């Protein structure tokens, strides 16, 4: 298993490189000039200098390698320094100085040049790290809620196959599967915010939770986006859960378990459920990246100040380094969760041996 995991991790490196080349190539091919917004009164030679300062003068492969260097070497160094300096978890460790380089002119240590956003002129990773918690709160909670709703629905509709509950459940999951989030979002806003006035329609990111009332407000503003995202998750996962339970309920070992006098609850909830969870867990792992993709739309609808909205604003502002970094973060997530799913499958199912 360990060799498989290591081999699988090694093969994901070329995958990531391929994806980075695709993203980089796409952005290179794209028209659009970062100097387009610089006033026309700026003389051309100054413009050329500005271009070089942004690293645009270099040949394409140099730009690509520099970008890789920034993403995989420089930024992790800054992350380690930040963790040993400020973070709660590793703050007790002695402070590291990985990200500092010696500047002979100033004769002291200065931070390395970081990958900056053309839009805000600040390091991209800092902005991304500021935005990630909002996305994680909404998306992560939505995913957990979705799974918690989906599993019982899937189990029960498989156990009572063709019952009214099963029919209704399959219909509702089909509907949830088909209605796009950019319609459920406004629909729920019309119902719960406009007509009933129960919940706020816009997610207030600046809201600080410090007492019971503000906590309740935080909960109420999270309900709508979480529900929209959870509907999609629920629909997908309960379908898988139902199919997987149905496969297992007809197996011979179920009859054996009943024949030896086990209670029905034990048969279903222990024997069948544990076996049916194997494919479902991999599906859950595989679904994590796609729900982040879906969050792009949901964040846009509810005004959540997360990473998806950052991508959209960066795209409209032609902020290519930012777009590239965020897209690549999404890609890394997909590759990592594919890896996790593969490994989990091998760990959970003893019948599967990769070696």
């Amino acid at each position, binding site marked *: 298993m360990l060799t498989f995991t290591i081999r699988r991790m090694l093969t994901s490196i070329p*995958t990531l490189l*391929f*994806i980075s080349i*695709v*993203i980089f190539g*796409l*952005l290179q*091919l*794209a*028209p*659009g000039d970062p100097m387009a917004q610089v006033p026309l009164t700026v003389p051309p030679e100054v413009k050329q200098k500005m271009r070089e300062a942004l690293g645009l003068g270099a040949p394409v492969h140099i730009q690509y390698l520099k970008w890789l260097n920034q993403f995989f070497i420089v930024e992790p160094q800054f992350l380690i320094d930040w963790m040993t300096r400020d973070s709660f978890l590793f703050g007790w460790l002695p402070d590291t100085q990985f990200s500092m380089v010696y500047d002979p002119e100033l004769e002291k240590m200065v931070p390395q040049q970081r990958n900056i956003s053309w839009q805000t002129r600040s390091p991209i990773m800092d902005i991304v790290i500021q935005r990630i918690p909002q996305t994680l709160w909404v998306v992560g909670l939505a995913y957990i809620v979705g799974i918690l709703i989906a599993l019982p629905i899937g189990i029960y509709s498989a156990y009572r196959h063709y019952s009214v509950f099963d029919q209704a459940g399959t*219909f509702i999951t*089909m*509907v949830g*599967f*088909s*209605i*796009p989030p*950019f*319609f459920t979002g*406004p*629909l729920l*806003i*019309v119902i719960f915010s*406009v007509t009933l006035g129960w919940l706020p329609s816009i997610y207030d990111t600046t809201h600080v939770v410090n007492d019971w009332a503000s906590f309740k407000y935080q909960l109420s503003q999270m309900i709508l986006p979480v529900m929209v995202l959870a509907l999609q998750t629920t629909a997908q996962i309960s379908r898988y859960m139902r199919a997987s339970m149905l496969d297992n309920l007809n197996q011979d070992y179920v009859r054996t378990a009943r024949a030896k006098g086990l209670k029905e609850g034990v048969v279903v909830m222990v024997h069948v459920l544990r076996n049916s969870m194997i494919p479902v867990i991999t599906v859950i792992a595989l679904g994590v*990246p796609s729900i982040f*993709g*879906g969050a*792009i*739309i949901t964040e*846009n*609808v509810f005004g959540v100040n997360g990473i998806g909205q950052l*991508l*959209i604003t960066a*795209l*409209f502002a032609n902020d290519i380094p930012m*777009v590239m970094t*965020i*897209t690549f973060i*999404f*890609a890394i*997530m*997909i*590759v990592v969760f*594919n890896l996790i799913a593969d490994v989990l499958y091998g760990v959970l199912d003893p019948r599967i041996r990769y070696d």
Partner: protein
Amino acid sequence: MTDTANEIDPYAALQDKEPGKPPRNQWLDVWDQFKKHKGAVFGGGFLIFITLAVLLGPYLWTVDAQKLDIRNKNVRPIWIAIWDGGAKTLWHRPFGTDNLGRDLLAQMIAGGRASMAVGWTAMLLSLSIGTGVGVAAGYFKRLDGLLMRLTDLFLSLPILPLLLVAVTLFRQPLRANFGPEGGMFILIVVVVGLTSWMQTARIVRGEILALKEREFILAARSIGTTSGAIIRRHLLPNVISPIMVSATLGLAVAIITESALSFLGVGFPSDFPTWGKMLADAVPRMEEYPERVLLPGIAISLTVLGVNYLGDGLRDALDPRIRGR
């Protein structure tokens, strides 16, 4: 002895009054099974209805979707008058008008045209790429490793962000070459088609790998049939059912993707209605005019729901193990 010999008529089977029925067509069986799935029949019917509506609609409802009629702006749909007599409704604007006085029914038809055209074309494109790659990978052993590796790589691309990037960045040159609508149409179709063929390719490859080892392929090869003819005559007709099922899924994905892009404001130009664009334009004023959100939203959702049900029914109907149950 002779009595019993007379009683038993040894030639009864040869003296049937009517000739034996010809063997039933496979597609009749499929149709019988398909009819049993009520949701699939509804879904297929709705898809046909919406396709006909957007194709024939402009001839029946001849109002121009782009025509501004600023005096009759913000007209509510006619059914609002049932419970709200004071609402501004007009009989010749049954679905109402938007904030510039454009007729909503005509916009729905025009928008549906765009959405369905994008959906069908992108689906056909992704289907042909997927089938091509799948057949090539399944049939030619030399290509298998390479093509499947490529499929895996495409599967790990972040699709929605890449779609957004591609559409935003390549909008200008294509618009300059093919006109604002034509350029956008080509861009969205190509981009959706290029990013959604992977599932089809995997399914088709699996089927081809299994079929390739069967005796009839061996027989075909032994009489000297070329690879191209084997693929065209023997393999493709046998993988038609998984292809049809993934076609329905592809149509649903393409319609949703186009609407999502339009919703995020990177789709078609602002004066060209599509369902996603109408939905996005209506969101800021949905408190006063919820029907403008509901109409395109319900249209998208019902179409996708219908297509998904159609796919479900087709999968059941085309699977010979389920058929007849």
